């Protein structure tokens, strides 16, 4: 049976388990004239769990291990000289066997033909054993669980425990994924830092990742000073935040404190739509409207500017992240209790005094997290920068010059035609690690700020 068929059968077993468990609990209680400890469906849930979940876990486990076991078995029966091949070549050979097993073309090579036949045999055998094991386990677990059903069994509490474990499993998957990503980035970065010195990477001011592909080629020397990239990222993000924080915060205050309900119900979704526009559209807008406008404006002031600038990218990015600031701030400002406002008004405070002195301090944690969310969007933004700020790694704090950012360079590093273990591609992981650490530090700082200045209401 295929994986899908087994899965479908297990789902059917789940329902079967539910009904038998329910029924059995009712009939037992009728027979013994004893009141059930829990509702009949709790017994049903328990039996449904035992009749499908353990079998499902075995099925998943089997499917994951299957291919490596079969591959090892194929290699074991290959002629000795083939077994001497390196791991990479063996992998290629096995891939070929698997591909051949799916095609119907005749195979001339004897060794390969034997291997393909053996592979097919193994797969078939594995499928059979898998189906039998899974169903035997499912039924055994179901009957054992049914045998445990008694009216005094605390099924409700057991179901509650199962739900608790299910929640723990969900939470750990999210956490483990994060940890996994961090570790993969760290390990690749360590390989990178074996070829490039950490300090040269962090504090080097020259970024030019082109390397010679052949020994004799006259190419770039490969210089990995990431400082211009991080400065570019921070410069553009700073411009974006300078635009987004005042605009977003003010519009949030207007929407939650001043505007009529009708205007708010119309304006808030429209404002939030800004976040839904694809970034490539923003990039387009930045490149063909804002950047030339800034260049022309600069020229009329006597400055000669390029049509790519950090300012153009930052402004457009700022507009894009306004909703992150405004929407979250609006929610937390609206959540400040009316009693706080009443208290302040009753003291003879005006609206703006109340907002400034009572509402904003009380809503500060939410506002800061909105700004943080906006900042991480700005730091991670790629498309607008590619289109409006350029690709040249200048170390400058002048927003009128062309700069590039960490994410943009990561894209260009990974879309090249170099091998995956060259310093050039590995540099992308090191940049990713740097970016991750930057946002982490920003998060820690803002947590500290919030804890220090928040005014908690109850």
């Amino acid at each position, binding site marked *: 049976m295929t994986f899908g068929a087994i899965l479908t059968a297990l789902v059917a077993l789940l329902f079967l388990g539910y009904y038998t468990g329910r029924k059995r609990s009712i009939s037992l209680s009728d027979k013994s004239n004893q009141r059930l400890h829990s509702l009949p469906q709790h017994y049903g849930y328990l039996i449904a769990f035992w009749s499908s979940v353990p079998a499902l876990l075995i099925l998943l486990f089997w499917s994951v291990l299957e291919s490596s076991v079969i591959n090892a078995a194929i290699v074991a029966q290959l002629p000795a000289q083939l077994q001497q091949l390196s791991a990479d070549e063996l992998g290629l050979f096995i891939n070929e066997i698997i591909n051949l097993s799916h095609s119907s073309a005749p195979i001339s090579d004897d060794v390969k033909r034997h291997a393909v036949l053996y592979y097919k045999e193994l797969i078939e055998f594995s499928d059979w054993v898998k189906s039998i094991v899974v169903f035997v386990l499912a039924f055994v677990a179901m009957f054992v669980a049914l045998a445990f059903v008694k009216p005094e069994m605390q099924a409700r509490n057991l179901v509650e425990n199962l739900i608790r474990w299910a929640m723990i499993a969900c939470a750990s998957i999210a956490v483990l994924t994060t940890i996994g990503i961090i570790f993969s980035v760290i390990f690749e970065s360590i390989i990178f830092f074996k070829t490039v010195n950490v300090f040269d990477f962090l504090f080097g001011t020259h970024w030019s990742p082109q390397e010679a592909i052949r020994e004799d080629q006259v190419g770039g020397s490969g210089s990995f000073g990431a400082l211009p990239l991080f400065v570019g990222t921070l410069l553009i993000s700073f411009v974006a935040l300078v635009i987004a924080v005042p605009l977003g915060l003010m519009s949030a205050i207007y929407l939650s404190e001043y505007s*009529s*309900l009708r205007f708010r119900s119309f304006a808030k979704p429209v404002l939030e739509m800004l976040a839904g526009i694809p970034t490539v559209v923003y990039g387009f807008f930045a490149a063909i409207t804002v950047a030339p406008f800034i260049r022309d404006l600069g020229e009329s002031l006597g400055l000669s500017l390029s049509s790519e600038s950090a300012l153009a990218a930052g402004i457009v990015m700022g507009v894009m992240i306004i909703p992150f600031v405004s929407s979250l701030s609006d929610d937390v400002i609206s959540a400040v*209790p009316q*009693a*706080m*406002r*009443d*208290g*302040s*008004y*009753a*003291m*003879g*405070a*005006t609206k703006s*005094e109340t907002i400034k*002195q*009572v509402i904003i*301090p*009380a809503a500060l944690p939410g506002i800061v997290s909105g700004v943080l969310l906006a900042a991480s969007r700005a730091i991670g933004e790629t498309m607008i920068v590619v289109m409006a700020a350029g690709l040249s790694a200048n170390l400058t704090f002048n927003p009128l010059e062309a700069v590039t950012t960490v994410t943009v360079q990561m894209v260009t590093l990974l879309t090249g035609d170099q091998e995956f273990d060259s310093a050039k591609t590995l540099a992308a992981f090191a940049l990713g690690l740097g970016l991750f650490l930057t946002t982490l530090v920003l998060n820690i700082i803002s947590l500290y700020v919030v804890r220090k200045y928040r*005014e*908690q*209401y*109850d």
Partner: protein
Amino acid sequence: MINIKKREELDIKIDKTVGKPFINDAKFSTRNVDVFYGEKQAIFDANIDIGKNQIIAMIGPSGCGKSTFLRCLNRMNDTIQDCHISGDIKLDDEDIYQRQQDPVLLRARVGMVFQKPNPFPKSIYDNVAYGAKLHGLAGSKIELDELVEKSLTRAGLFKEVKDSLHKPGTGLSGGQQQRLCIARTIAIDPEVILMDEPTSALDPIATAVIEELMISLSKKYTIAIVTHSMQQAARVSQRTAYFHLGYLVEVNDTNTVFTNPEHQLTENYITGRFG
């Protein structure tokens, strides 16, 4: 007009307020006050004087409009959308609803204490200093310190909090929080203090402390208090007003209202027949 229907069901007429609604030397005087929330009328033709340095208690069953009436006196109802008020409300013979009246300045003269203690999420000191800073009542830090101490002392709270002035006001007990709110109100030195069921969230001991405080404050301030407790009205107030379904039924000296009510509805309420 559901209110009128109910009134007919009770078959007791409310033509005009009985008792002694008007007095000489009034701090507040209201004439023909109607209050509407959108289409719904909450107060019908309220006429009453509130005497200087007196405590007036407003009693009545829930939803009778006593809190709404109280909130008219410092224009807190302005903050509620679609609330309309007609009629005259005069504070020291000046119409507080006239065009040139600034509600913000009015509220500095007419302070308010709410049902649920609502200290700001700031330190005890900042809570009390809040209004003084807004209105520029203290020229220097020393003056402000003195003002805070004086207000907390008058609210009977200073001894309890003098070592924790810079801890959050929200960390105090309910009764202390309410006294903090009173301290914060008297720090801006208002002429009138409105109290909207100030002890309904407190235990009997904290209530007794606040009641004593009200009596001592009434030497300096005019106090209007809304309460659900008739005992409280009897204990603290000189005059009592009875509201019923938006109508001001009876106003008189507290003693008279509780011993010899003129109106049948007042009698029903104070004898516990409904409410």
